[in-house]
């Protein structure tokens, strides 16, 4: 097979897809084979994602923009669909794979047995995520959003149960409405631009006449609402903590990246479509992102304090993370964007680890398990899925100590305390807000920045208060009758691995930030991206066949 | 001449079918029983199938034929399901 490197770009979409589909041919009892195939493909995915990142970014390429464009069906841009690999998308791919592998391994402990087709759904979720990050076409983005959402519905509902079904119902209803808004927005944009390719849109939008401009803005605004729902902006985000808390732990762990898809799209499209407009930073859209982000941080903070279960707490942490990112995007400054990207990576890893950890800790209280048991018992028919619940791996000694350490690490990460990457992330954002030196030096700092500063600090504090509250209750003052949670090695290793990644992020903060800065620079100056896409030529045939151009 | 005759015939037929659809709708809305509504829907399907056939004549284009074919061959499935629901309380036993 002619596997020239350019086909690597589509591999993040195809690998999970093919693996997931092949699993459909395996019997449900061949669980070990299924597990092997899906873990293996996720490892391959991780390797390829890292390779792709290396293709678009090497340390000495920080000042040039390398992109790889993949023309699906070999049709020339901007007519058909293409995939575009740039720094941002490759970073999101790596992040996705980095979350996927631990979540998947974690699920092997017990969750993948809680229902059928877990691995397929999981892999197809990865396909949806990767497709959404790679695609350079607005409608294709919708399609991959739907792939991702459909799989996420399946993963939220995985194992069924009252909580999950109730949460799933709300989640699905709201996301269905969001999808409809997405369609309306895309349709309006198409009606005034006549194109769907993102790069082409970036060229056409500034040239639109005044009458159509209103329509375009209306479409873009409706589209943004769809993205903001997914990103979890207040007041469109009440479903999020409930859903994430109800979702099975490995699902929630991979969902940590899902709210970031909304952020990713907002960041990419707003800068691509409107970034060339010098008035954009002061525009209403940017302001809404900024203030909405601040409101979201506030609400997340309040929720973090008010949450009674760790799951909801983690859900509200997602909101804080989203709010911070939205507000950062709303500031439309390259430095802030770079900081926000670092924050995105760090907080995603931390939240993912937290969701898995919570389940392990709660296992002591035996809540999740009992919910599952009730469902299975209530409806008479025996379930072959749960019959053979044998232990894979070894239960680890000093469980509480290990869990406690991980919990502490999560607290530190989410509260933005040193020494893990949560601190660095918060610092780089704050530092960018008050960018020292050269251009900075503003004697007047706008009130919003103060608010942002205060909220960043206060949200960290609230996280600290809430997590110390529950951490102390869980680890330091365990109720008498709590059984020691039975935690398997393959469940705690993923958590530890994610936390170690944040440590790596901290230690390697320099190179990582250089990458983020380069990413932010290309986002804010998308000319090379646009030209790179538009100039891509179709492959010419070795043997004569009708070609394009 | 041909064109005029055909135009009037087609227009009359379309309007007649349109009115027929309205009448079917009236039955769908007024009921009074579920079976009346189902009957109304079935008639609406059939009338619209005819409308599409006439539309095909009007446009001289046979591309719209499939839609009539589908209503004709498969449109009854929905009605069957509705009727069975009324009769058995369950669509598939």
């Amino acid at each position, binding site marked *: 097979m002619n596997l020239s490197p350019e086909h690597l770009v589509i591999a993040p979409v195809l690998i999970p897809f093919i693996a997931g589909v092949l699993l459909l041919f395996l019997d449900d009892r061949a669980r070990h084979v299924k597990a092997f195939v899906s873990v293996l493909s996720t490892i391959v995915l991780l390797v390829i994602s890292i390779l792709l990142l290396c293709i678009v970014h090497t340390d000495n390429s920080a000042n040039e923009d390398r992109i790889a464009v993949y023309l699906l069906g070999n049709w020339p841009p901007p007519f058909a669909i293409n995939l575009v690999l740039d720094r941002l998308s490759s970073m999101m791919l790596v992040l996705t794979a980095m979350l996927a592998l631990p979540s998947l391994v974690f699920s092997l402990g017990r969750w993948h047995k809680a229902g059928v087709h877990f691995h397929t759904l999981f892999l197809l979720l990865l396909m949806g995520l990767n497709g959404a990050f790679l695609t350079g076409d607005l409608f294709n983005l919708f399609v991959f959003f739907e792939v991702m959402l459909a799989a996420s519905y399946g993963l939220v509902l995985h194992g069924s149960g009252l909580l999950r079904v109730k949460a799933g119902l709300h989640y699905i209803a709201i996301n269905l409405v969001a999808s409809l808004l997405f369609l309306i927005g895309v349709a309006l944009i198409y009606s005034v631009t006549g194109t769907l390719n993102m790069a082409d849109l970036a060229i056409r939008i500034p040239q639109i006449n005044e009458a159509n401009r209103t329509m375009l803005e209306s479409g873009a605004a409706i589209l943004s609402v769809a993205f903001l729902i997914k990103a979890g902006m207040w007041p469109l985000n009440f479903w999020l903590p409930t859903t994430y808390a109800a979702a099975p732990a490995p699902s929630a762990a991979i969902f940590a990246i899902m709210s970031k898809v909304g952020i990713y799209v907002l960041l990419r499209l707003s800068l691509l479509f409107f970034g060339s407009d010098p008035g954009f930073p002061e525009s209403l859209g940017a302001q809404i992102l900024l203030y909405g982000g601040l409101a979201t941080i506030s609400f997340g903070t309040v929720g973090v304090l008010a949450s009674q279960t760790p799951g909801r707490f983690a859900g509200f942490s997602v909101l804080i993370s989203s709010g911070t990112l939205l507000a950062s995007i709303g500031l439309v400054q390259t430095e802030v964007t770079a900081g926000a990207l670092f924050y995105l990576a760090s907080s995603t890893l931390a939240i993912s680890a937290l969701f898995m950890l919570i389940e392990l800790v709660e296992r002591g209280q035996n809540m999740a398990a009992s919910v599952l048991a009730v469902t299975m018992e209530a409806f008479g028919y025996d379930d072959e899925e749960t019959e053979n619940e044998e232990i894979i791996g070894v239960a680890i000694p000093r469980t509480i100590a290990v869990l406690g350490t991980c919990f502490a690490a999560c607290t530190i990460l989410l509260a933005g305390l040193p020494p893990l990457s949560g601190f660095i992330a918060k610092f780089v954002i704050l530092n960018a807000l008050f960018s020292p030196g050269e251009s900075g030096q503003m004697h007047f700092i706008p009130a919003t920045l103060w608010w942002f500063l205060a909220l960043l600090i206060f949200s960290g504090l609230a996280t600290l208060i809430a997590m110390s509250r529950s951490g102390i209750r869980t680890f330091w003052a365990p109720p008498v009758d709590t059984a020691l949670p039975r935690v398997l090695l393959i469940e705690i290793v993923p958590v530890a691995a994610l936390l170690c990644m944040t440590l790596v992020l901290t230690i390697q903060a320099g190179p990582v930030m250089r990458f983020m800065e380069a990413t932010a620079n290309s986002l804010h100056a998308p000319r090379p991206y646009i030209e790179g896409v538009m100039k891509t030529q179709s492959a010419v045939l070795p043997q004569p066949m009708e070609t394009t151009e | *001449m*041909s*064109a005029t*005759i*055909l*135009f*009037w*015939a*087609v227009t*009359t*037929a*379309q309007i*007649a*079918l349109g*009115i*027929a*659809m309205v*009448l*079917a709708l*009236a*039955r769908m809305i007024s009921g009074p*029983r579920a*079976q*009346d509504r*189902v*009957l*109304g829907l*079935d*008639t609406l399907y*059939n*009338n619209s*199938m*005819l409308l599409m*056939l*006439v539309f*095909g*004549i*009007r*446009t*001289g*284009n*046979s591309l719209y*034929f499939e839609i*009539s*074919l589908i209503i*004709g*061959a498969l*449109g*009854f499935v929905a*009605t*069957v399901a509705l*009727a*069975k629901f*009324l*009769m058995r309380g369950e669509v598939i036993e």
Partner: protein
Amino acid sequence: MNHAADLPIWATLLIALFLLIGAGLTLVGSFGLYHLRSFYDRIHAPTLGTSWGTAGIAIASVIYFSVVESQLVLHQLLIGVFVMATTPVTLILLSRAALYRDRTENNRDVPPLHPLRNLPQASELEQDSMATHKNAGEEQK
């Protein structure tokens, strides 16, 4: 009306005739559906549309396209065949459902479950209909 002007007048007239017959019958049928008072009367009405209503318009279409395309185009007739075959299914099912519902509601205008016997007394109908049927069955035996 792309090709309308090219049509020979006989074809035009035939087409117009069948169109009007078909549409007219369909309209009458739908009017009946709307107008008639009892459900069992109403089920007769739409068959106007599904029989000659459909046939008329399908024939008009066949003539039109056969003349325009100068070859025999018959596929519209298939529609008529399918409609003819499937309409009874829906009507049978529907009327049976209506009958069932009317019987469980002790509607006196419908035939009894045992058509060879007389209608049961009103007093019996008020009771559990199942019991009534049971008695009826035994008596018959």
